[in-house]
């Protein structure tokens, strides 16, 4: 491997430097039918799961075929997407906010060959490369975080549980049988760089053991005041520890019973790791949404306090999610999101219908807002 210079001169970093130019401008990449009709769309319809048509004032139509993408994607896969887009869509393609890939064509006769082509492509071991679906009252793609592929704080993997869950929900990715759309999201720790806290079903990695203290390293490595300030429950205080060489080490002490396992201290100080095979696992949350449709946006609520990590297939997590989806599919009214359904029937019924245990962990005890989640009426269901 010979080093290939880009032209950058490390001795003169400012020479010919180009900065602050921002992204490429969006309209460079619009397919003609989009560029011609922007802002002049009249209506849309989902012709079948995964296939949409948008009709413009001009009479132009754009047909979109949506297919599931995997967020962790190789250039090999992207180049295959390029091949497909060049074959069917004049070299244009887009992604959705939820990691789906959308291929757009400007006439209906181009739709079926495109769908056929996408559905025919499989990986060597048999999974679909581009399953068509993810529209309407069904399950769309799971948005997620990095997990064990790339992150330093995860309490679970991301790509693994997502693959296992989507395999189980695959039929609903390709169907419109649910009462409304169902959004599943995964964040591999409660930093939630995936912001899963407003999802119909959220899969959340969670640690359950307080940080370990690597004192020698902590003294050398960490800004102790920052680690202390990072703790939302004030569980960390400075202390002095006897070092191996007889000297004193500046370090911290953690009041374990006050720890909420958020890992913020670890973010500020790498000498305070939390990860633990037995301690880490999954929290399931349910009933959130971001849309303002009918009811206001809602946070997801914790409905299962802990499920151990079960790589590679996370069977308990997947089965529990499946159970919730089936109970919702069976019982909710048309247009009712999972959280709206739970509120209508009452959370006591939700636990019954989803066959979930209600444990003390599910009663909020975190600061003031907790009080407002306790039942303050005599109205409840037996």
């Amino acid at each position, binding site marked *: 491997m010979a080093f290939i210079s*880009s032209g950058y001169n490390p001795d003169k970093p400012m020479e010919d430097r180009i900065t602050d130019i921002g992204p490429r401008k*969006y309209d460079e990449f619009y397919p003609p039918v989009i560029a011609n009709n922007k802002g002049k769309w009249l209506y849309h*319809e989902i012709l079948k799961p995964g296939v949409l048509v948008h009709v413009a004032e001009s009479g132009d139509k754009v047909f979109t075929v949506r297919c599931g993408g995997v967020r962790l994607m190789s250039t*090999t896969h992207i180049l295959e997407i390029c091949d497909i887009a060049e074959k069917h869509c004049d070299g244009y393609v887009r992604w959705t906010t939820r990691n789906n*890939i959308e291929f757009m064509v400007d006439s209906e006769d181009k739709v079926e060959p495109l769908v056929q082509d996408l559905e025919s492509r499989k990986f060597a071991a048999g999974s679909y490369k581009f399953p068509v679906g993810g529209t309407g009252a069904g399950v769309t793609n799971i948005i997620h975080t990095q997990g064990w592929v790339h992150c330093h704080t995860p309490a679970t993997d991301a790509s693994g549980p997502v693959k*296992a869950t989507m395999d189980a929900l695959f039929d609903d990715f390709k169907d419109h049988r649910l009462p409304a759309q169902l959004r599943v999201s995964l964040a591999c720790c409660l930093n939630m760089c995936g912001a899963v806290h407003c999802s119909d079903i959220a899969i959340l990695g969670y640690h359950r053991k307080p940080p370990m203290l690597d004192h020698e390293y902590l003294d050398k490595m960490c800004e102790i005041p920052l680690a202390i300030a990072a703790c939302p429950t004030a569980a960390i205080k400075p202390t002095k520890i006897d070092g191996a060489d007889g000297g004193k080490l500046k370090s911290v002490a953690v009041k374990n019973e006050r720890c909420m396992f958020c890992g913020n201290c670890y973010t500020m100080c790498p000498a305070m790791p939390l990860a633990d095979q037995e301690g880490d696992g999954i929290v399931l949350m349910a009933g959130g949404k971001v849309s303002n449709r009918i009811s206001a946006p809602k946070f997801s609520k914790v409905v299962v306090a802990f499920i151990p990590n079960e790589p590679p297939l996370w069977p308990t997590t997947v089965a529990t999610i499946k159970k919730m989806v089936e109970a919702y599919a069976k019982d909710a009214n048309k247009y009712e999101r999972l959280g709206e359904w739970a509120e209508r029937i009452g959370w006591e019924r939700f636990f019954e219908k989803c066959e979930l245990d209600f444990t003390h962990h599910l009663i909020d005890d975190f600061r003031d807002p907790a009080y407002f989640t306790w039942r303050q009426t005599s109205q409840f269901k037996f």
Partner: protein
Amino acid sequence: MKHETPLLDQLESGPWPSFVSDLKQQAEKRAKNEEGIDFQIPQDVVEDLLGVLELSFKDGETHWKHGGIVGVFGYGGGVIGRYCDQPEQFPGVAHFHTMRVNHPGGKFYTTKYLRELCELWDLRGSGLTNMHGSTGDIIFLGTTTPQLEEIFYEMTHKHNQDLGGSGSNLRTPSDCIGQARCEWACYDTQAICYDFTQEYQDELHRPAFPYKFKFKFDGCPNCCVASIARSDLSFIGTWRDDIKMDQEAVQAYIGGEIPPNGGSHSGRDWGPFDINKEVINLCPTQCMWMEDGKLMIDNKECTRCMHCINVMPRALRIGDDRGVTIMAGAKAPILDGAQMGSLIVPFMRAEPPYTEIKEKVIEPIWDWWMEEGKNRERLGELMKRQGLQRLLEVCGFDPDPRMVQEPRSNPYIFWKEDEVEGGWERDVDKFREKHQR
């Protein structure tokens, strides 16, 4: 393959696209190297990634070390350092840094451009990406420190492309598909997203904030990019005039000629469309009714929840007097619990050059937050700590009942001295003239 991966291999079956299969095809392509690429990072990087991931599946713990300060000259964001904690076993991923590449609005691409990016990333990185990261960026996953400047140089010189945000700065703004392909977009989300991204390049690349700051642009209250839940400033399209109606199309929905909700319930027999049950009775403000076979809306009472428009897109259309509602302070749970965006501007025009939004909303809020925000305090947390009133004061906004769910139920009002007649300075001796001790 260099490493056995019996656990990961189980994720190759099942119908959903397997990331393991994709990693393997990428590993194989690099090993064969039919194009004769002079790889600038280890050729077996993907094989080692599979190896370290298998080890994590076995151990139930991650094998990535805590960050590391790496970056490109003059920027404080856009690159995230990552090192493997088993570098001897997996030398190919010993350094495995991430670069955030600012994605184009609407996530539209030409294949020509994607191919250019792939070529760059195959040469100088692992060839693995996230399409896309949660915030929106294209994520280049895995390269070594010496390649960072080279990649940045090629990106800016050859591809007219910049990095995205990370750390305590403006994160890469993102938008919904908007007017590009949606009839409900009340403003051009891509135009404003691009304009703000360009205007605030300095804030995006050079961390000067207490913590991260996110803008997201939703074209309508359906909130497809979830701005209301996850952006410090959330811009949601809205309108002030009447919903436009086509009574013939209403009849076509009633008559079953057009499927409700754009055909999104086609997987089950829900029975014939019932406009009372499915639209009128579900309206949260009960401002709709049928009269002489016509659908009526008391638009003044409408709160623009989008339900009726979603159900009957061919009959009902958004109004023409359009702008944005601005919400502030949303964030995920860290630290003090999740926060939803709170309404600070009921309505503002969103047309270029967006001066009112920049000068009356964004910049005063940033000044306040940079002055008063504590280290790692999000805007929403500062709002919680100092109160919504303080934000209104900072922006010079008049309080409006639209900004609250309900008025306070405690009377503990923090009166200010200048609000109280005569002020707070009093003479206790004068008081004592009237009141004995």
